[in-house]
């Protein structure tokens, strides 16, 4: 793999940039792989990368029905934080957050992790108690975070209208080590690093069936022919239930549209990430200068990457309420993704009823931030057949056993 650096950039500048290698190859699928990962988003590509890097597997393929990074990896609002309420979630998201810190160096691709701080606002007493509780719980488990009073918030985010007439901001949690990253770069960085370790990334290859013999998965049927595999790892986000159905089992997953939007680009005017669960909106500013705005998921299930306008209007209203100076700005583009939501709003990293077939889904509205942790833990599960210590509670059997990990409070606003 060519090393990316300022020096290599200068070197290639003098050669007219004609000699850059491909970031990843475009190979024909082989007949057989040790592991096939289905879904070339950040989680899937990361899984392949860690399988190769940590578990010594060499014959790995990632199959993608469209273009890599084109699902929720490329359509989220890039927020990264780990201040979840429950211990199990906190552990997994904190693993992910700590990996973010050095991900650019790990994959030699600038994913632009920007720990600019994330504020979760509260607007009433009930909210306030919940946030205070979460901060204390985080501190008890060693996750960085603090509680801010309205005066402290004003100092931290002078642009925000803290004492707004309705639903004034009464307090907030602030995780300074949380922030944002460049979403496409995560997929591309993992793709390039995985490719360099010999992983075959095969785009435009839809899985439309599984070869299952004696309860064991033997491979997949695809639009580019049958491919054999010892193990198959599904990382299909919004289409998890579709693939599970093809493999003959059902998932407790609802797929719903989640929308987001950006404004036209502006000179820097907001330096942190602001989230409000009570009024369903959040906002940050991208490095390009666009305000990135989102809110809650649509109420109705669907696989279309489009949502209802009133839901989006609600998110915009929340941001306009908190930032009167943003009201005159304009929406440039809105879009939707399909999020996979489990009954307890927590992820699923699990074996399945089919032997050697594993699934990673259920990240709902908050999957982007988990990318490196999810990939690392899932690679561990796929390689060893047993869950990663930080992801033990996230298997499918929790829905049968009732040992659910409730994160609805964290998911009230798309996170």
């Amino acid at each position, binding site marked *: 793999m060519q090393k*990316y*650096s300022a020096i290599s*950039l*200068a070197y290639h*500048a003098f050669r007219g*940039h004609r000699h*850059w290698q*491909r*970031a*990843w190859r475009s190979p024909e699928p082989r007949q057989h792989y040790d592991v096939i990962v289905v879904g070339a988003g950040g989680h899937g590509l990361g899984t392949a990368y860690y399988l190769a890097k940590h578990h010594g597997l060499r014959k790995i393929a990632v199959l993608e029905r*469209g*273009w890599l990074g*084109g699902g929720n990896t*490329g359509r989220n609002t890039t927020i990264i934080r780990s201040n979840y309420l429950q211990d199990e979630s906190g552990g997994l998201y904190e693993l992910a957050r700590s990996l973010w*810190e050095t991900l650019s160096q790990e994959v030699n*691709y*600038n994913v632009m992790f920007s*720990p600019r701080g994330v504020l979760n606002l509260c607007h*009433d007493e*009930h909210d306030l*108690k*919940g946030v205070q*509780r979460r901060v*204390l719980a985080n501190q*008890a488990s060693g996750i960085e975070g603090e509680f801010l009073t309205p005066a402290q918030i004003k100092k931290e985010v002078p*642009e925000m209208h803290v004492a707004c007439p*309705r639903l004034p901001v009464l307090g907030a949690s602030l995780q300074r080590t949380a922030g944002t990253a460049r979403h*496409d*770069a995560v997929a591309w*960085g993992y793709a390039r690093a995985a490719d360099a370790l010999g992983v075959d990334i095969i785009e435009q290859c839809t899985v439309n069936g599984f070869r299952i013999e004696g309860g064991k998965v033997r491979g997949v049927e695809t639009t580019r022919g049958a491919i054999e595999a010892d193990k198959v790892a599904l990382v299909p986000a919004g289409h998890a239930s579709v693939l599970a159905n093809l493999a003959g089992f059902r998932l407790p997953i609802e797929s719903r549209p989640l929308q987001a939007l950006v404004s*036209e*680009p*502006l*000179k820097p*005017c907001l330096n942190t990430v602001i989230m409000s669960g009570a*009024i369903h909106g959040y906002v940050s*500013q991208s*490095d*390009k*200068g666009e305000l990135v705005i989102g809110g809650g998921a649509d109420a109705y299930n669907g696989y279309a990457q489009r949502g*209802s*306008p009133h839901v*989006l209007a609600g998110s*915009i*209203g929340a*941001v306009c309420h908190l930032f*009167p*100076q943003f*009201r*005159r700005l*304009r*929406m*440039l*583009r*809105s879009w939707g993704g399909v999020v996979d939501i489990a*009954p*307890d709003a927590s992820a699923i990293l699990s074996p399945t009823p089919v032997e050697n077939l594993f699934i990673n889904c259920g990240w709902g509205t908050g999957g982007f931030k988990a990318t490196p942790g999810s990939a690392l833990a899932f690679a561990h599960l796929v390689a060893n057949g047993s869950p990663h210590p930080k992801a033990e509670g996230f298997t499918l059997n929790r829905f049968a*056993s*009732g040992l659910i990990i*409730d994160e609805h409070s964290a998911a009230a606003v798309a996170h």
Partner: protein
Amino acid sequence: MKAVAKYRLPSGGHIDRSQLLQFSWGGRTLHGFHGDTLASALLAHGIHFVGRSFKYHRPRGIYTAGVEEPNALVTVGRNGRMTPNLRATEVLLTEGLNAVPQNAWPSLDFDLLSVNNFLSPFLPAGFYYKTFMSPAAWWHKRYEPMIRRSAGLGCASGQADPDSYERRYAYAEVLVVGGGAAGLAAAHAAGQSGKRVVLVEQDWLLGGSLLARTGETIDGEPARAWLAKMQRELAAMDNVQVLPNTTCFAAYEHGMWGLLERLRHHGTEQDKPNAPRQRMWWLRAPRSVIATGAIERPMVFANNDLPGVTLASSAATYANRFAVKPGDRTIVFTNNNSGYVSALSLIEAGVEVKAIVDTRPAPSGAMAQRLLECGVTIFPGHGISRARGWHDLHHLRIAPIDEEGVAQRGGVLMSCDSLAVSGGWSPVIHLPSHQGAKVQWNEEQACFIVAEAPAGMAIVGGAAASFALAQAVQEGATAGASAVGATAPAYGAIHGAEGALDCDSIAWIKGKRGKAFVDLQNDSTAKDLALAIREGYESIEHVKRYTTTGMATDQGKLANVNAIRIVSKIRGLPMNEVGVTTFRAPYTPTTLAAFAGRELDDFLQPERITPLHDWSVTLGAAFEPVGQWMRAWYYPKAGEDMHRAVQRESAAVRESVGFMDASTLGKIEVRGKDAAEFLNRVYTNGMLKMPAGACRYGLMLNEEGTLFDDGVISRLADDRFFISTTTGGAPRVLAWLELWLQTEWTDLEVWLTSITEQWAALALNGPKARKVLQPLTDIDLGHEAFPYMRFREGQVCGAKARILRVSFTGELGYEIHMAPEAAVSVAEDLMETGAEYKITPYGTESMHLLRAEKGFIIAGQDNEGTTTPDDLGLSGLCSTKKDYVGRRGAERAGMRREDRKQLVGLLPENETLVLPEGVPLGAGELTPPFPILGHVTSSYMSPTLKRGFAMGLLRRGHKRHGETISALVKGAAVPCKIVPPMFLDPDGERLRGEDA
């Protein structure tokens, strides 16, 4: 009268020369006419250079005459009305308009960041992914702030927007988008049916391309006269609403459209400060005619971005609509016939056209002949290999090209000050594409068109690549008529633009030097596209994202098709295989506040107050927001703080009597022959055998088996119940019940009605409650006559009332429900008859304290998402005989494990201490990190127990009564005794009250 600006033509144009307007551009005072855009007024003064590009900060001019403008972005207005990133081409000139350039520092003429242009070899597409990685911490601290400062375009005002916005919902049978010839014909044809028709046009003038051309006739009369006639006739139709200044920015599912109507032009908002600035329409229209026209494409060649380069049709628009010359010496560069149309149009308007450069080897036809007759030189088979200039254009290198568009040796250098380019036309197919319409490449007209229009939509005119005027009008009329089930009117002779473009596949002149821009605003070049593909970013979506092509504020209106052509050429793939990127709403940038409308500030989730609100205010109550409600929190007397007020109020209830405003309780009437059966399914306890006149406390679970809400169910009659919910849960519960009724149990005959606001409620509690209330009511309140958990209907203070004998304090209690109008007089009468018992109004805080002493939970506070009734010690309320929502979930093994978090009482060893709510519980010293075993859910100082007490959820809590656990308070471990969550009167003696 000021002298006419230098480039203003002496006559013509759709401008009003009698209205001279003064405006300011970057501090310079200039003049224009009513009907000008900011762009046309600037061009009239010969000002082309108005902006800087995003990445290289290159000088940029006015490239177009419409919403597709990528370059001429300006900031307009002052203070809170300052609006960045507006296209000078869509800003109507108004008196006193203040516009300034943006994205340039220290000035437009001398911009330090234009050094980026010379550093460009080091800044190819995606350079930032390859560097700024070392040392790791520097990205956020050093590199990112630098990049952020140089990126962005205009600045947010930094001040609150003083204007207001409104929203309107409407319905029309037919929506016509686009007020050009095709759209007018469609609206006219549809309107004659008498059905409701809405016609929207983003411009302030109707007419579309008719405004930019001359010499056209429709129905035998000059196009301008036809246009006036159509406007007159449409205005006369009551059923037709014509909305100029309105953009249809999005098409949503089920015939829903987003329209943004601009009611005030920039710079005129302060004239009527209370009138809304913009109005957002959510329009339902099952049928639509998409007459959105087409947008001309640029040509890609070196330095194609210099100020002075414009689209050919835009140059013609400036000449014909605004009577402005694009320059003194214009050259036209085209690869299709429309360049000739524009050239002729310019000549007719009095503009000198020196030459036409045409990529096609053998242009022919009448137009070429006419141009030759006008003395225009035609360069067939040539391209512009490079433009020269910096702040303005001064020369063009015109070179012969080969079949691949590669510039050959030879050619000429020609001077000019304006270049008009045409690289073909792109139909505006955004709206059908929002609805997922498949698009395909049309080789004949060299553009993407919609392969199959979504149901209910007809695409006509330029939007359907029908570029001939006659065809556009006829298609519009036909679509408009068929949308209302009529037959199309026949039009007389139409003479105008011809349809066939004969567009060459060459739109990219490959030269050796200079930057050939594809996306003008984001500065992505043909070279960048090639680099992306070389590096493996091959999918058009990857090319877009890696090079940022099509991601600028024009969203690729100019760039995308050229980018796809170049990708198609480099990869050797047909256009359809390269494909397009997704079209997303909005069509053009749309004001954020317009989405919010009035639901901001005081009107965001508007405050709800109870009928007793003002009464509480007069008593000096402090209020707390609960959901949207404002609830009386406590009633401090002079000198009292919250703590002392709550202690007094709570003690009064325990010792004598008090009452609170319970009007915010969610209330739902459940009616129908299956009402009992329905409630029996959604509550954990049995409802079937409950007699009329009885009340029951019930729990609702979700499918997981965890607590969803709680409340009291009262049976009014066999087929009629009245249920209460938590204050915050009322909307959620109603929606949940409707969900079950409407999607799962459609066979049940049950109707739900929210009656929260129809019934005010007072909760009267305390041992003297009966004594206070009995004189005010005709209902016998005797313990035997009116036992606990019953309800009665009768009169209270002469008003019709329902009284529930329930208690949330552990004391004798009556919940009095009455008409909202009666609430204040009942409260006043209670105060009067209760005076001898020192009756005390109490607020929500005392209510919380009193119920906690008794161990009653508050749903939403003492539980979390995984808490079951069993965890709360409420398994007695869960029937084992019937099925109900959540039963299966709650019966899973994990839901019954001993080590679950269960509700316990907590008594801090330090009796004066009140544990903060939310603090974690654990074993021992609690030095982080430590395993969290639970948390404190409710905590108060009890005036009765004379000590602090709390409830909490604790792992294995039910089995730990008597043990000690630590709570983390301000970093220290505070020991607490674990006790059953019931601190007072476990046998319920007090519920009888005195004089039973």
